[in-house]
């Protein structure tokens, strides 16, 4: 980025630790740089993206700003209130209440807002109440939360509640890998053929250890465990591999094409305008509560926006630290992650974890799909291929390596 120089890097192993794609949504707890770059690279290389329909909405993002208020708040005793001052989670999850799983709390909050019990002039958020914890506890255990309240909501949380809404936070899906962190693809009759030399770790990967919904803190655990596993495997692989595979003469072609296209534009749309349309569409069609109608419309809209990505204009063609060029290239990654998400979501006709579709909701005692989860037909991983935007599926690994299998149960609390 600094010099604008182009380099081709030829390595025995490549590890992608490029993070998630939270910026495909309008309201996100994520940094601006989380644009799914590793996912875009993998998708363009023909590697499928796994389980992209499963996105975690974190219940407590500051309304408007999107900045995250840690779940630790609720761990310390903070509670969610609707416009009636009611601790509504007592109704939705009598046992776990405000500490129910994130997708469940997010849906409960969304439900309260939909049913008219939201707060504020537009009744579009709920409140997180912390003042009862006492100023000392707040300053000692949640100091950064206090700062966020002051900076982003003009609220002193030791005295008043803070507006929160479910905000996109984490992608459970990503580049498919095995437990060595090696990227796996469907090849030679196998659903999980390891690609020698390519690894993915962290939010950009899908081992899958988070399934359809991730528990708090488990992303850190994921990084530590599989980061180390991949590191160990890379050391072993690199020392066994005597030489690099020869680099094809046209190795840089496709990348050069993308750069040259941008550098020769004289008209077109501004990158962030296209990106904002991706975000608005995803927020509307692949939100906390999904409907088949909305998702199908999303598929159409995202496909239409995809056409516009190829016509983005780069006004700044300079070499040195050109951030406009970076942002334009990032939109090409955003669209891959967005399309993977909406297409996978529209195809999955059930409710599972973070993917809840009101058309398929069922009571807990439903014979076929308790709480909407249809294990007979849908206990499988989605795989989205960029070329042709097509879907495939692979079975879920149900047998752990060293402990007894844990059979899926109905999720009630």
């Amino acid at each position, binding site marked *: 980025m*600094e010099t604008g120089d182009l380099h081709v890097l030829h390595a025995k192993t490549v590890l992608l630790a490029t993070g998630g794609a939270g910026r495909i949504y309008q309201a996100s707890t994520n*940094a*601006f*740089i989380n644009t799914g770059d590793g996912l875009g690279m993998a998708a363009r290389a023909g590697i499928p993206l796994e389980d992209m329909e499963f996105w975690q909405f974190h219940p407590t993002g500051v309304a408007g*700003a999107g*900045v995250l208020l840690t779940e630790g708040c609720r761990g310390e005793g903070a509670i969610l209130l609707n416009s009636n001052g009611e601790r509504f989670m007592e109704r939705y999850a009598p046992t776990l209440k405000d500490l129910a799983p994130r997708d469940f709390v997010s849906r409960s909050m969304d439900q309260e807002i939909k049913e008219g019990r939201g707060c504020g002039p537009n009744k579009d958020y709920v409140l997180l109440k912390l003042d009862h914890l006492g100023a000392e506890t707040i300053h000692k255990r949640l100091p950064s939360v206090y*700062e*966020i309240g002051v*900076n*982003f909501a003009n609220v002193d949380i030791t005295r008043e509640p803070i507006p929160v809404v479910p905000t996109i936070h984490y992608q459970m899906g990503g580049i498919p890998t095995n437990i060595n962190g090696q990227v796996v693809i469907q090849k030679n009759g196998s659903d999980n053929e390891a690609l020698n030399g390519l690894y993915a770790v962290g939010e950009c990967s899908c081992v899958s250890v988070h399934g359809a919904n991730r528990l708090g803190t488990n992303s850190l655990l994921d990084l530590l465990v599989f980061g180390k596993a991949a590191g160990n495997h890379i050391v072993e692989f690199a020392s066994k591999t005597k030489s690099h595979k020869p680099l094809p003469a046209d190795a840089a072609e496709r990348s050069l094409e993308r750069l040259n296209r941008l550098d020769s534009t004289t008209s077109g749309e*501004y990158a*962030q305008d296209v990106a904002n349309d991706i975000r608005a569409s995803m927020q509307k069609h692949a939100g906390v509560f999904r409907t088949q109608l909305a998702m199908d419309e999303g598929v159409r809209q995202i496909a239409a926006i995809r056409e516009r990505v190829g016509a983005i204009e*780069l*006004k*700044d063609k*300079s*070499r*040195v*630290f*050109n*951030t*406009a060029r970076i942002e334009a290239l990032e939109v090409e990654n955003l669209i891959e992650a967005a399309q993977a998400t909406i297409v996978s979501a529209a195809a999955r006709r059930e409710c599972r974890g973070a993917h809840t579709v009101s058309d398929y909701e069922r009571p807990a005692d439903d014979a076929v799909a308790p709480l909407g989860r249809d294990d007979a037909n849908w206990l499988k991983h989605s795989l989205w291929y960029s070329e042709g935007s097509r879907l495939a599926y692979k079975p879920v690994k149900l047998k752990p390596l060293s402990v007894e299998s844990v059979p899926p149960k109905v999720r009630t609390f």
Partner: protein
Amino acid sequence: MEKRTFHIYRYDPDKDAKPYMQTVEIELEGNERMLLDALMKLKAVDPTIAYRRSCREGVCGSDAMNINGKNGLACLTNLRTLKGAITLKPLPGLPVIRDLIVDMTQFFKQYHSIKPYLVNDSIKPEKERLQSPEEREELNGLYECILCASCSTSCPSFWWNPDKFVGPAGLLQAYRFIADSRDQATAERLDNLEDPYRLFRCHTIMNCVDVCPKGLNPTVAIGKIKELLVRRAV
């Protein structure tokens, strides 16, 4: 809708013989809370304006810059606190790569020179190296540094000797490890700072304390290191 005037430091080494100030006026919609929000609107009008940014919540340190003469983070600077025209310049003293983007190499070199990691070669315990709540308290006001460089680039001593004086950020982190009950390299860390320049160019000017966006106090930390050095000498 509100019109705001910005004076922005511009420099593209490929195009400009030398840096210049560019005046831009934009119409803000009213939903922009922080300076970073306004910068993004500026970039939509002129995509060639270059600046670093990432977290937008004051934890990554990317968007430190000189705002109306004072260093700070664009994402934590509320527009309501900036009256009149807004002058944006890169952090002072570090080489400018382009516009508001500086070369942080010297800053990070000083940071790495104080060995910013725990040194404890005793036998690894089964689980964590334990620490009492009181011992952990000692790290408050030290661990929160986000390495934004607002402090070091506001320090005249750092301007005059960036290669010899460690600077407030590096020294704050030096004390962070000296103060950590789990670290065993205190003697070496103090030896590392015992020369006329590395620590002792601090003359308690305190610009660092004035600008730290996280409210940290490098001068107090540096004072504590000075005290440790004096005590072990007598």
